[in-house]
């Protein structure tokens, strides 16, 4: 993953070209950019619009609709905490509070909410980068976040 905060228009065009043959490529192109660079810089949107021959408003509309897409470089690690019902029933509210508290002092870790990770049978669940972890409690989630931050610094 390349973390510079600008992406050259040519790079964006190349990614567009790689997906242009697919049916309905806009979201796929946004995904590809985010996969490659960790985020979708707002400067890329007009380039995509031009390449796909649609309005900037349309591309921006797609970008802004989806929770996953981001316009800022990502932190080193993301921890997504499930706040949905099966996790709530096993103490997810306390896990969420603890995660937020821990993240306030760990700049390399971003904590965000998610609604169900499909891990409801071993709840509460979190997803650390791409890895799902089950049966969380406030102490464990705090430990995981602090550990990630130590490793990152």
């Amino acid at each position, binding site marked *: 993953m390349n973390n510079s905060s600008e992406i050259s228009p040519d790079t964006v065009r190349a990614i567009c070209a790689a997906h242009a043959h*697919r*049916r*309905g*490529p*806009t*979201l*796929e192109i*946004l*995904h590809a950019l985010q996969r490659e660079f960790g985020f979708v810089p707002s400067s890329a949107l007009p380039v995509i619009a031009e390449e796909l021959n649609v309005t900037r408003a*349309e591309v921006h*509309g*797609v970008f802004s*609709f*989806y*929770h*996953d*897409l981001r316009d800022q470089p990502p932190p080193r690690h993301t921890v997504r905490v499930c706040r*949905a*019902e*099966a*996790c*709530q*029933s*096993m103490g997810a*509210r306390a896990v969420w509070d603890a995660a937020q508290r821990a993240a306030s002092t760990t700049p390399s870790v971003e904590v965000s909410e*998610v*609604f*169900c*990770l*499909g*891990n*409801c*049978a*071993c*709840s509460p*669940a979190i*997803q650390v980068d*791409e*890895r*799902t*972890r*089950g*049966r969380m409690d406030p102490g464990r989630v705090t430990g995981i976040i602090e550990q990630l931050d130590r490793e990152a610094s």
Partner: protein
Amino acid sequence: MRLFVPADSTAVSIGADEVAAALAARAPDAEIVRTGSRGLYWLEPLVEVEHEGRRLGFGPLAPADVDGLLERLAAGQLDGPGAVGDVDQLLAGQGQQRITLGRCGVVAPGSVADYERHGGLAGLRNALAMTPQAVVDAVSNSGLRGRGGAGFPTGTKWQTVHDTDDSPKFIVCNADEGDSGTFADRMLMEGDPLALIEGMLIAGVAVGAEQGYIYLRSEYPDALRVLRAALADAREHGVLGDDVLGSGKRFDIEIRVGAGAYICGEETSLLESLEGNRGMIRYKPPLPAIKGFFEKPTVVNNVITLATVPGVLMDNGESHKALGTGKSLGTLTAQLCGNVARPGLYEIPFGMPLGTLINDLGGGSASGRPVRAVQVGGPLGAYFPVSKFDARLDYESFAEAGGMIGHGGVVVFDDTVDLYQQARFSMEFCAKESCGKCTPCRVGSTRGVEVIDRIHAGTDVESNIEVLDDLCETMASVSLCALGGLTPFPVRSALRYFPDDFHTAVREHVETAHE
């Protein structure tokens, strides 16, 4: 010695990889097969050992238990700590009928060779030898209804696509599985992805489609990896491609990953998203079956629906229709979770009483405290008190009891639950995930949170309950889709069955209202 260890993401979330690594280190000569999960999640990490044609289970295991297990196995000792015996017998003993998830946790996921060894592709082979109409008829005859939530008859949907004179046609698998408390799609895709692929192929044969799409939620990176490998192996073996199993028919599948929007599980929103757009709900009609993906006839089916189809094609739907009750035929892949002692995937014939599932199979709460509430059918499902545990889990009976089976999620809460918080959350969730097209859903839900808070604070309780009632009425009647339309269900059921959680003045109101 052959050992089976799940690579299912939930099993891994509680240590299955560590157990597999310990086994590999301590038993270098053993063959370790990574499978999906059997869905016996309270026993995970569950290791299975092949013994005289049976699979014996040991779980839950920690890496520290591995040495002891290997020593006992070497000594021919098949009992001891963690031994659960023949896993298939265990499932059967619970009354499970694994017609859809039978290979989950058994096969090496995504291997065509292993899939065929366990009966895979027989349904597709039958379908390829039949007329498209006969394939549709088999599905209609089975009584199969969509498992994604709405329970629409699958044969009827396929018939419409079959009869629509337009091309190309598409098969879209709804793998968005956004409902909280559900994981059957994930478990199937991670454990037996070829069943889904075979189901999509059969759908393609039935309606005359050559291209399929799997719309997978982004929260499932492991399922994505397994599906990709399965697609590659299927192409390699000529199951997908220009000449499906030598039939001269063409079919291929592309995976598209969602981007974190609950509403994209609704089929028209999903199609918008698949076309690369904002996931805004479309007006129906036209039905997706007539004008779906890029306005072409499209079958949209849930993962479990499609994965059930290969079995249906084995015997013209006869054994499928022999299970279940009334108009709810076949099996419910119930996902029992939350605060329950034995959480897991229970594939049971439709019609089991809710209380039997939760107490007899599930063992009651995990905390040991009394069970107090249960939410069935995802975030839009009603909250039931224990007094409604005799409600039967089939579409009609459950709807009569005021509930909805939906995708089959059953979330259990003990007596520490606060239904005020749960109702508030339902409204909050609706506000967060609304696509924004209808005002009652977009704005009303935020309003709903405030009104619920006012009731809880004891401010003008009587008049605020009326405001909430009106709001729910409006959401239920004018919303374009079920997000706005059904959010009143959890809210109103919480208020009705658990009034004391809101405010002491609520009980009296509720009692007069429901006299």
